[in-house]
């Protein structure tokens, strides 16, 4: 349970980090919070010739408001997001999600960008980025670029990040004051990865919910959304018979690659997704 040997570099800025990566090549890895990478290396699921520790790069840390967006530096710790007044005011769904996110000692160290770049299928931040139409700001040897969340997450641990790319920050459009949002997870122990989970949002107009959207995670290879399903649920909300929600969720998700885990098979995950979707809608109506 000890990692194999590796070299260690601690660049002071993004250019130095990219240069370091170019020098070491394929088997070098960026180290952000290390709360997934270090265990994987300790268990020897993963190895690396060099860890390029990003924690000295100050420009990659912190949260700022820019126009109608919050820009979250990739190295911002989970707990910094969870306890930020700015986030509470502009993106309260992230604070709601952080209640489910690991344990305090992990949240103090793990980073927003690290979680997004790893793209663990059960993690909260990738799901939130997808639901909130976040844009990933990526630095690379050929300059900077932006990738929308819908194109960024591509499969199990697979993202739009190329070999030499570095995720610098995540820009997320703020939630409007008339928006309601809700995060629900079912897990065996508080803070563990969920068996099934949903994040949902909707606008309130004249007392009615509009523009309903939902993301399912911890059930597939990546967070899942489906515009048609959103529209169907929106239709059901208008009609008032919420008991129809679980069935249409199941029908929609059956077209996706739903992944069993150690404790729950695909059927259970489909069932729980339907239950959670209905509860989320009820919660959005109640709030």
């Amino acid at each position, binding site marked *: *349970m*000890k*990692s*194999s*040997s*590796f*070299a*260690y570099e*601690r660049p002071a800025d993004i250019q130095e980090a990219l240069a370091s990566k170019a020098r070491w090549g394929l088997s070098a890895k960026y*180290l952000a919070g*290390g*709360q997934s990478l*270090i*265990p994987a*290396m*300790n*268990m020897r699921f993963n190895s690396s010739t060099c*860890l390029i*520790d990003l*924690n000295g790069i100050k420009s990659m840390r912190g949260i700022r408001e820019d126009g109608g967006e919050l820009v979250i530096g990739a190295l911002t710790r989970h*707990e910094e997001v969870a306890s930020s007044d700015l986030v509470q005011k502009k993106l309260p769904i992230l604070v709601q999600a952080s209640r489910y996110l*690991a*344990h*305090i*000692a*992990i949240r*103090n*160290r793990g980073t927003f960008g690290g979680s997004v770049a790893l793209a663990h299928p059960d993690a909260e931040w990738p799901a939130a980025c997808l639901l909130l139409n976040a844009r990933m700001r990526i630095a690379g040897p050929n300059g900077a670029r932006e990738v929308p969340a819908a194109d960024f997450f591509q499969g199990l641990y697979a993202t739009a990040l190329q070999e030499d790319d570095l995720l610098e920050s995540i820009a997320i459009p703020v939630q409007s004051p008339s928006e309601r949002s809700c995060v629900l997870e079912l897990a065996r*122990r*508080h*803070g563990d990865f969920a068996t099934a989970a949903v994040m949902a949002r909707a606008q309130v107009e004249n007392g009615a919910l509009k523009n309903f959207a939902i993301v399912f995670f911890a059930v597939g290879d990546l967070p899942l959304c489906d515009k048609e399903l959103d529209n169907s649920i929106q239709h059901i909300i208008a009609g008032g018979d919420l008991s129809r929600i679980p069935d249409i969720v199941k029908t929609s998700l059956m077209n996706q690659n739903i992944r069993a885990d150690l404790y729950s098979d695909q059927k259970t995950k489909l069932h729980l997704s339907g239950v959670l979707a209905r509860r989320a809608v009820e919660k959005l109506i109640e709030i």
Partner: protein
Amino acid sequence: MSNINVRFRLNAREVEAQTDPRMHVIDFLRKNFELSSPRVGCEHGVCGACTLRVDGDIVRGCLMLAVQLEGTSVETMEGLNVSGEISDLQQAFHERNATQCGFCTVGMLMASQDWLSKAKTCSRSAIREHLSGNYCRCTGYEAIVDAVYKVAIARGISSVKEEV
């Protein structure tokens, strides 16, 4: 790989040592400074037995590299024993027999003190939630929550009705 020099503050004392980059904080503290309170448990961040404080925040010592301690301030149970910061909590653990085999105790005390120092209101469920990252394989959770709750009340944290 070549060793790297690390300078940091350990329990209010400036220290310096060499480390292999692959060594995590717990092995480093045990081998170089002969501290026995940081436990080597699961070494993949699940059990919480290695919980210690870095720059005032609790972290998993097994998920942090020793080289990353450069310039930080580290506090282990040895330091807290000297400062007396949690003597009331330790006394409560003793009285309630919240220490059985003792392996998880240091991590439990660290996580409990972290909660006690921040909590504005007190409930058993809030304590359980905060300690959810720490395993006790003797399963003595009830006694641990009792002890932390008692200290919370004694420190003047007001009790609230349990959320169901």
